[in-house]
């Protein structure tokens, strides 16, 4: 059965991570480990894809005699798990291929190789787990392995702090999930998911579980305001691990939410949908705004993960809202949109992180202000990165657009909802979604433009060289997927049908055999989209344009210095930087959201020193939520610490008073 195969793959991955400890010393160790991981993830990917498409005959469950003794470790492969396994193992496969090339540049392989396969195994385990203990076990193990990978370059400034914040937030999330499962399982400890499904909680408990699940899984997925660790931790890891954490691990967190809220919790309530969707909208906008303010390429990508998680949660929230009102097909549409975006984001985010990794290895720079003009030195990387940027900016004909288009379609169905709050809220969320999509486009114009276009700003950028074949191969595979999923979305939607059917009780009409592969989520007259056709016509039109112009018009071409309104050839420093590019947007949004203040120091006339402009931004969320907690803990620790410095007589007094108090209690009790 498929499940055994997957478990064997996981076992293989764990064995690989064991073997990696000695292998890390060998020169050939890195390719060996990544090769093994590659083979195993390819097999797992195959099994998962097969069981997603073939369905029932391959799905199933089994129990291993490990974990909680009287419970055993339950595993189940259903269509939902199969879909997320496809996402996980696609990411794992590409990351492994990339790692074969990227691993050569790793200075401390001993800190990466053992944990990489373990991380992959843990993510697979989470998706397969079918009881609370196994789920949380795998979940926390995933955190631990990824933490070790974040700490791989612990000597770089800031990384240790990032790892610290990450593991604390992860444990906080696990704690919340622990509470949630405690509530679901009850004091008798019916931890198996079947038992939980059999005895769904009451309304109050369900609400608590929902909130706890949002806190728990949301902190892992990067839901605002629990996102603060993400932009620090994801970039700190080696780039292929960043890709896994951003592209895949956040999806595993989404899986956690879906599993708990849609599967275990039974029938949703409409306010749950409102809550989730609103959180999603806020997360999307906050994430992209943070990204716009960012100059660090990898951190920018990490913030975009936050944004896309927000988009996914919008879809999930809509699905909940529709499902609560029995609008099955609408719920199916929203859910399909969310899940499709899960897949898409995992693809193009991995692509983008691989690109940033290539840039990092070629230039040793993550700061865009020190880059520029790389398109001349690394054309292939630039091309792949451009595809990724277009995809994440939700531009047709790439895949990012299709999922966001589906989300919009779901939003446009919201007038059918009976609750007035939802009626009013959902259009606003739609506006947020549009805003975040547009800002994302702006942000990636900045990212690609400042990094790859223009003129190199430093020697590092000037002397960059194209990256290795493995990395390029990975990026182009992913780019191809972006395009294919964009122009042939019908097949992907059909693949999601069983998942939607299980969770939402309905699924979209089959898209595969519609004429010309148009996708029609609801009705022909309502809305339709055909990426393939658009792609072909545009190609045709462009070709026509080229043809006509080069046939009839001049195709002479002279190279010369840029015109630049007649200024003499200025230094690269005069180019627009990332900071100056995002300045208008910062003026518009940042002054409110980040309390952004610009301080310009203009030297007095005759003074030759340079004028300086300094932008100061504050993260209000941090100030409001996290700083007080740290202050509180420090304060309490200081106060209690005084107890360490008492005299023995004082300690005896403590004992004495404890005794007297207890005796009094006893005397009263009788």
């Amino acid at each position, binding site marked *: 059965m498929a499940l055994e195969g997957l478990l064997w793959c996981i076992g293989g991955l764990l064995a690989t991570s064991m073997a990696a400890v000695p292998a890390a010393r060998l020169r050939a160790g890195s390719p060996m480990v990544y090769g093994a991981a590659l083979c195993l993830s390819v097999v797992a990917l195959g099994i998962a894809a097969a069981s997603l498409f073939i369905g029932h005959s391959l799905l199933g469950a089994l129990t291993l005699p490990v974990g909680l003794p009287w419970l055993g470790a339950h595993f189940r492969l259903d269509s939902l798990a199969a879909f997320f396994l496809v996402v996980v193992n696609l990411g794992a496969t590409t990351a492994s291929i990339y790692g074969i090339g990227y691993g050569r540049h790793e200075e401390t392989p001993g800190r990466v190789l053992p944990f990489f396969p373990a991380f992959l195994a843990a993510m697979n385990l989470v998706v397969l787990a079918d009881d609370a203990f196994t789920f949380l076990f795998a979940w926390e193990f995933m955190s631990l392995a990824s933490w070790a990978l974040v700490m791989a370059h612990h000597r770089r400034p800031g990384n240790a702090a990032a790892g610290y914040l990450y593991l604390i937030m992860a444990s906080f999330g696990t704690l919340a999930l622990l509470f949630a499962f405690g509530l679901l399982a009850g004091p008798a400890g019916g931890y198996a998911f079947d038992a939980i499904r059999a005895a769904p909680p009451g309304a109050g408990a369900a609400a608590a579980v929902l909130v706890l699940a949002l806190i728990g899984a949301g902190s892992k997925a990067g839901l605002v305001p629990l996102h603060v660790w993400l932009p620090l931790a994801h970039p700190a890891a080696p780039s292929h691990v960043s890709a896994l954490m951003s592209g895949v691990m956040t999806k595993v967190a989404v899986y956690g939410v879906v599993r708990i809220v849609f599967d275990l919790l039974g029938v949703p309530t409409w306010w749950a949908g409102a809550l989730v969707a609103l959180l999603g909208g806020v997360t999307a906008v906050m994430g992209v705004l943070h990204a716009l303010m960012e100059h660090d390429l990898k951190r920018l990508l990490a913030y975009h993960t936050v944004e896309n998680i927000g988009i996914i949660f919008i879809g999930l929230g809509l699905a909940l809202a529709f499902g609560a009102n029995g609008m099955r097909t609408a719920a199916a549409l929203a859910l399909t949109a969310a899940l499709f975006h899960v897949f898409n984001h995992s693809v193009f985010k991995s692509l983008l992180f691989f690109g940033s990794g290539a840039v990092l290895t070629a230039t040793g720079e993550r700061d865009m202000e020190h880059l520029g003009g790389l398109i001349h030195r690394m054309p292939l990387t630039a091309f792949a990165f451009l595809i990724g940027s277009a995809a994440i900016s939700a531009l047709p004909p790439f895949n990012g657009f299709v999922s966001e288009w589906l989300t919009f379609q779901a939003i446009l169905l919201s007038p059918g909802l009976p609750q007035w709050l939802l009626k009013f809220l959902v259009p606003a969320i739609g506006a947020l979604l549009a805003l975040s999509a547009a800002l994302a486009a702006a942000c990636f114009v900045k990212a690609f433009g400042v990094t790859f276009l223009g003129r190199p700003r430093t020697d590092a950028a000037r002397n960059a060289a194209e990256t290795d074949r493995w990395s390029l191969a990975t990026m182009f595979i992913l780019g191809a997927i972006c395009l294919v999923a964009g122009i042939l979305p019908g097949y992907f939607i059909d693949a999601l049908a069983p998942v939607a059917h299980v969770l939402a009780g309905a699924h979209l009409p089959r898209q595969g055999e519609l004429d010309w592969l148009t996708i029609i989520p609801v009705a*022909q007259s309502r*809305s339709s989209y055909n990426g393939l056709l658009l792609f072909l016509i545009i190609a045709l039109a462009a070709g026509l344009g080229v043809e006509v112009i080069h046939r009839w018009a001049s195709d002479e071409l002279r*190279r010369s210095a840029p015109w630049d309104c007649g200024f003499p050839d200025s230094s690269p420093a005069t180019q627009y930087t990332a900071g100056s590019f995002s300045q208008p947007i910062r003026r518009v949004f940042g002054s409110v959201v980040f309390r952004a203040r610009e301080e310009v120091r203009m030297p007095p006339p005759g003074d030759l020193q340079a004028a300086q402009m300094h932008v100061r931004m504050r993260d209000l969320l941090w100030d409001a939520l996290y700083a007080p907690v740290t202050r509180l803990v420090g304060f309490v620790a200081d106060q209690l610490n005084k107890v360490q410095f008492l005299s023995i007589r004082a300690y005896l007094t403590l004992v004495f008073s404890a005794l007297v108090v207890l005796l009094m209690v006893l005397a009263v009790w009788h």
Partner: protein
Amino acid sequence: MALVLNLLVQIAQMALVLAIAPLFTGYVRKVKAHLLRRQGPPLVQPYRELLRLLRKDVVLANTASWVFRVAPYLIFATTWVAASLIPTFATGLIFSYAADMIAIVALLGSARFMLALAGLDVGTSFGGIGSSREMLIASLAEPAMLMVVFTLSLLAGSTQLSSIAASLQASDVGLRFSLALALIGLTMVAIAENSRIPVDNPATHLELTMVHEAMILEYSGRHLALIEAAASLKLLLYVSVIACVFFPWGIAVSGQGLVAYLGGVGVYVLKLAAAGFLLAVFETATAKMRVFRVPDFLGAALMLGFLAALLLFVTMAG
């Protein structure tokens, strides 16, 4: 048979928009000139400019990459296709089901994306100014646009332009206040998207005030020609959208025969003339605003769209 007919209509549409777009731009210029008591260039001036540019060589900056050279073709192709998906004189275009209103907006977004990149490619400061301001304006315009779309789909139960046109033609919709709001909102968006006054001034080359012009500052020859053509196509597109959605009368339905189609074309031209005149009047009547006033402008558009949707809820509930 119907298929072939639709194909023919589609091709006619593509040819029509391509042919008529520069004329429309010229027409607007002419009217503005007259309003300013000037003679103004002849209507065919834009065609002449395009031809001249096509004949000239391209002077390419040393630092330009392939993005800079590919962008014009893609921008042109995308905008052209987008424009040709809008029922201008007839519905039942064969490709119209390939993209609904949201997709059309997104197509324009792709074009803008390429253009902004091209602006950054050469590595001069002006391109940067243009790109960053263009993206700011776009990011503010899109939510407003979506709210308009939302309102329309709320009325027509569709985001498919042809269906919207059809259902708004049907009498039962009638005149609605929210439609008016949506119209104003869409118009404001259109003005911003086409970088017209008061958001931007297509005629200026004063460095610090220009947005669109700054991006294409480094372009020359055929590349510039393509971009100019794309710009006028985009203007035509938005006007046609407004015409088709809010004044859907006279649009020929597929299979009505040649006369109907010719009539449709005639009506369409009349609509364009009216719209162009209004646009010219508006532009001459108002002054360009500072870049940082634009958010307020588009914020107002967003509010209008939102208001339209909410009012519609109320009226539909009642």
